[in-house]
């Protein structure tokens, strides 16, 4: 349909406002990271430092434990993404294709887990996991994060599966495949966008998790980068320049990942026909 030029003018104007609003804080983060220490407070409100410098980045990369934290975060987030996607694919598939006794109970249970403050779980979990040797370990974090993200990931995967007609598995099973074989070889490949979206979502969530990473780990050996960022606070009496530099570095994978998969998130939610 024809749209008057006025419509498009307003359209683009509003969109630019949104884009500006979204990007400005990130820009500011970058700006602080590039401001050398001596200009940090005196030039605090300038839009761009008079002398941009990479000193913070250099310091973070060479003189701090940050590369270690980064590596740990990478390991934990990737493992969580993979594990969570696997189990929630299975669960999402089960919810999509079967009706069984206890199905609504399971769904209700998953909804409930989204409802309570996770803060409450820290102390009990610490006491539960210590004897198992899962504190101060990346494995422990992976298991905890997988559990936290499983409900929403299941919901996502279920909507992706709902969009694929059952006839496909039925055809495969008539051809001689077991249901699991059909699931693995035919359905799963078709939901690649869904898998991408879910993994990306879980990755981002695990990447930025702070509370449990902080509470379940006391050694730097097993710390993730959010914990590392907080350590800048005590170690250098709030060294903002370095903290922001570390923050920028840590943002890069999360943003990249998210940029790649955000399109699939929209598509996936549409595909499953988000019902009330």
């Amino acid at each position, binding site marked *: 349909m024809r749209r008057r030029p006025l419509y*498009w003018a307003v359209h683009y104007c*509003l969109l630019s406002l*949104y*884009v500006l*609003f*979204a*990007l400005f*804080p*990130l820009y*500011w983060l970058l700006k602080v990271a590039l401001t050398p220490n001596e200009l940090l*407070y005196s030039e*605090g*409100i300038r839009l761009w430092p008079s002398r941009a410098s990479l000193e913070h980045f250099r310091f973070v990369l060479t003189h701090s434990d940050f590369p270690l934290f980064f590596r740990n975060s990478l390991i934990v987030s990737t493992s969580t993404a993979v594990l969570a996607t696997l189990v*929630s694919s*299975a*669960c999402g*598939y*089960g919810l999509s*294709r079967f009706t*069984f006794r206890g199905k609504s109970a399971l769904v209700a*249970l998953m909804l409930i*887990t989204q*409802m*309570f*403050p*996770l*803060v*409450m*779980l*820290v*102390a*009990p979990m610490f006491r539960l996991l210590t004897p198992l040797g899962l504190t101060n370990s990346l494995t422990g974090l992976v*298991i905890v994060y*997988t559990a936290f993200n*499983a*409900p929403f990931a*299941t919901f996502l995967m279920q909507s992706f599966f709902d969009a694929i007609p059952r006839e496909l598995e*039925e055809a495969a*099973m*008539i051809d*001689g495949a077991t*249901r699991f074989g059909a699931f693995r070889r035919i359905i799963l490949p078709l939901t690649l966008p869904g898998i991408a979206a879910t993994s990306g979502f879980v990755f*981002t969530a695990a*990447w*930025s998790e702070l*509370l449990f990473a902080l509470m379940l780990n006391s050694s730097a050996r097993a710390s993730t980068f959010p914990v590392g960022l*907080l350590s800048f606070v005590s170690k250098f009496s709030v060294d903002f320049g370095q*903290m922001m530099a570390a*923050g920028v570095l840590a943002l890069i994978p*999360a943003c990249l*990942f*998210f940029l790649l998969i*955000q*399109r699939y998130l*929209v598509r996936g*939610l*549409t595909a499953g*026909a*988000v019902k*009330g």
Partner: protein
Amino acid sequence: MGADPHQGETEPEVTALGRRLASGAEPYLYTAPVLLLIVAIMLVPLGVGLSYAFRDLQLLDPFAGAFIGLDHFRELIADDIFRDALRNTAVWTCASVSLQFVLGLGLALLLNREFPGRRLVQALVFLPWAVPTFLVGLDWQWLFNPVVGPLPHWLFALHITHDANNLLSDPNLALIGPIVAAVWWGIPFFAITCLAALQSIPKDLYEAAAIDGAGLLEQFRSITLPLLAPTIAISILLRTIWVANFADLIIVMTNGGPADATQTVASYIFTVAFRRLDFGYASAVATALLLLLFVYAIAILLLRRAFLRRQA
């Protein structure tokens, strides 16, 4: 599992029974891993955590741990900070969710048309979601700080504030900081959900309405909103609960202050647990929050059922 049509021979009894059992157990096999994880990692600690509410648990006191019944809850009812925190929670949740929703829906409407550069714009405006929440808090804390951030000066120049002080140190205004940060971070969630729902509305409904005489606003009112309503309702419900539980931004930006002025129930739990190190009381507060949200969820579901019944 379907029967194998190519198999002519009859199977031995055991295998047939085994297969029937297996197919009956199939759904449970698929859903078991997630179920196990949730029960072990979330529900068991939850139960334990809830039990703490009835015990005296101070982290620094090795002799604590005794069962004290409802003492914590009695303390809770008399707690002024808790009462203020309840009020703040209401303000925090309502403001954050409604702003996130309105702005997110607006963004989704803008993104729902094809235009050159749409992919890029979409990716950019969704970016805030990828930023870790405490980094969001730190970033906005800096933005609001007049020494190192531009916002106080801009607000002053635009005559919105009457001085260029740090918003976050004013007990009456401090909650605005985390709210703005939460809105910045949360718009993508609503935008993505609404966009997905918008895209599932068939285009020819709008064409039919245009032919029937509806302008843009009328189309929005009579087609977009009613068809979007179920999705909106569920999203808002889930989001409200989640935001009510969300303490990160408040802790990072104001620490509940100045002087506990910005404490919400969620941040109060955190403060009591990790600053006062009183896990028993913290669990009591958390239990109260859980109860509140539970009541809220049930109320909404009952409302929804009544609404649906009236419609039919």
